[in-house]
């Protein structure tokens, strides 16, 4: 059986015509050849077993174009503030008018939209593509081949970035379904710190597909707080990758709020390859209607004394499916590694389902590793307690589901950022109902 790439066939042929430096053209061509021969992922692949791709339609997805920013303005507005720096991407391309002016960009940080780097200084991003390990999988290859924009962020050594940087990826196209392929490359220098938000959102009625890929490298003692909001509109399925390598004593906190109504899959691939590096991952996924919301993590412990924490929660209503797959790998050299993983899920209807799978691969005895997974209905005792105080079934449910997700939300320590993400995901949380 030949591999299926149908909705992306137009993009696949377009890629071959793009100009660029030879090393990038080589990387793109190799990636698109792999993608075309492998085809889109199917449920026959072990890691896609419970996550069939959505129906992307028979018509071709367009490779994106520099759209008018007007439609995006209203959806982006809540993310802008005087004390944050935003880079906005609309339908796959950087929008100068919606992004913060360059004058406001923080010192000690080299910030640039990928489209501009590709045009004028492609050498800046060469190290990310030459001699680097390729992430496995067709969707990653597609991103490598087809990305046109994204953000490049380089925090120089010893810089504590005071402002929060926000990357806002917005789908707005209603007439033509657009596939936007975004590649963000982030380097945090020695002893530096950064707070970064990546939000994937869209306008009402938008159509298309978003393939968003963020790669992070952290030098010694670097610190990165990452907040990710996945609120893609229902007509824009969203595939997302976060890959990070952590140097010695570096700290990465990632909080993922995967609450939007579209088919969404997030892959998180963390490599702890510096001594005593720490990663703290937390997230919540929310699935309703016939939606699939999937979080796949792989945390590789490859150096002595490294620590990882994973705390993921899922809410599934109606006939939706949630997926959590969490892999912990501990290599022989990761002596004294300390890894924990926790996944709790709440089912709000009898037809909702959650597939929760921990996977452990441990090659040393000198390790502390704990994992736990629990999936259950909403607590009837708690529900009755609320009702017996006068709260209706809907409001009581809302309070309990919010509290369940709230533990993840409370990881966001900056008050302004927390109230922003809270208001962004509120409609999604409030839209959940309990059904028999």
């Amino acid at each position, binding site marked *: 059986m030949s591999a299926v790439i149908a909705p992306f066939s137009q993009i696949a042929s377009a890629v071959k015509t793009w100009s660029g430096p030879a090393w990038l053209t080589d990387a793109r061509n190799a990636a698109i050849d792999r993608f075309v021969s492998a085809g889109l992922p199917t449920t026959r692949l072990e890691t896609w077993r419970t996550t069939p791709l959505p129906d992307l339609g028979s018509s071709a997805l367009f490779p994106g174009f520099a759209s008018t920013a007007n439609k995006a303005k209203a959806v982006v507005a809540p993310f802008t503030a005087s004390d944050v720096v935003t880079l906005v991407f609309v339908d796959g391309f950087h929008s100068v008018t919606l992004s913060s002016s360059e004058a406001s960009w923080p010192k000690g940080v080299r910030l640039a939209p990928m489209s501009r780097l590709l045009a004028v200084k492609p050498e800046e991003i060469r190290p990310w593509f030459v001699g680097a390990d390729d992430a496995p999988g067709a969707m990653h290859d597609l991103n490598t081949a087809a990305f046109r924009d994204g953000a490049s962020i380089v925090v120089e050594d010893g810089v504590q970035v005071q402002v929060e940087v926000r990357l806002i990826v917005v789908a707005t196209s209603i007439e033509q379904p657009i596939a936007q392929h975004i590649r963000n490359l982030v380097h945090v220098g020695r002893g530096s710190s950064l707070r970064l938000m990546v939000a994937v959102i869209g306008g009402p009625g938008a159509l298309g597909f978003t393939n968003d890929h963020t790669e992070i490298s952290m030098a010694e003692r670097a610190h990165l707080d990452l907040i990710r909001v996945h609120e893609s509109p229902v007509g824009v399925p969203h595939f997302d990758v976060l890959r990070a390598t952590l140097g010695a004593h570096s700290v990465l906190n990632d909080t993922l709020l995967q609450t939007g109504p579209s088919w969404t899959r997030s892959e998180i691939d963390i490599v702890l390859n510096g001594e005593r590096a720490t990663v703290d991952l937390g997230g919540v996924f929310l699935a309703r209607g016939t939606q699939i919301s999937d979080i796949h993590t792989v945390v590789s412990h490859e150096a002595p004394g490294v620590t990882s924490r994973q705390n993921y929660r899922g809410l599934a209503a109606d006939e939706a499916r949630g997926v959590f797959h969490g892999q912990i790998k501990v290599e022989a050299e990761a002596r004294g590694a300390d890894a924990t993983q926790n996944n709790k899920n709440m089912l709000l209807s009898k037809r909702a389902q959650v597939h929760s799978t921990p996977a452990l691969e441990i090659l040393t005895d000198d390790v502390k590793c704990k994992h736990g997974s629990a999936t259950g209905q909403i607590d009837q005792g*708690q529900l009755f307690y609320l009702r*017996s*105080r*006068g709260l209706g079934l809907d409001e009581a449910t809302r309070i*309990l589901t919010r509290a*369940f997700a709230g533990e993840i939300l409370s990881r966001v320590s900056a008050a302004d950022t927390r109230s922003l993400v809270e208001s962004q995901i509120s409609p999604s949380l409030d839209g959940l109902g309990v059904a028999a």
Partner: protein
Amino acid sequence: MLRITDLHANAGDKPILKGLTLNVNGGEVHAIMGPNGSGKSTLAHVLAGRPGYTVTGGEVLYKSSPLFDLAPEVRAREGVFLAYQYPVELPGVSNLYFLRSALNAIRKHRGEPDIDAIDFLAIAKEKAKLVDMDEALVKRNVNEGFSGGEKKRNEIFQMAVLEPSLAILDETDSGLDIDALRTVARGVNKLRSEDRAMIVVTHYQRLLEYIVPDFVHVLIDGKIALSGGKELALELESKGYEWLEKEPAGAH
């Protein structure tokens, strides 16, 4: 206020209440005593509308209307309050938010405007004093990590905020040391009023030294076996319940 006539109810499939009759008027405090398994807590839960209990016979009129026609939340909005024997922990739900939502649900039912967070905080602080509840506890998540005594105090604090017409206190004394018992009882006493009735369910007479009832009823095998004034509690303290269980109901 409350008129219970020949009430029969099951917990699961098991008949527990077997013809209970009781009248409670505004301003009165009724103590329900009885041995374990006699149906005291079932009565409290059935009145509040807890799932898992089935009414199989009889009638309960609350403010002259059938109580069992109302969903649990509507009973609460109409002024029925159950102080739980085992208060439930609500991780991630702040006491203030929870109680303000509850109070506003009750107010909305009465056609009254919402109370905002700032005004509510003032009310909560004032009511917390009634039960000597630490302000820190008022702001914490509902019952999460509270000691047994703090949980019971929180129940009475909620009662003070919600100002019910009919308060049912289910074994509020269980698990309390004497100091906590005195504090909780003092709070309850401050909430006694002409237009508020209370049903105090307890196994021991001890609580009734501090919350002095107008009437004491002994529940044996799902029925009121004996009713009397506050002195009946003392008699039960010295004689226990066995002498009542041995004699057929109706002999007194």
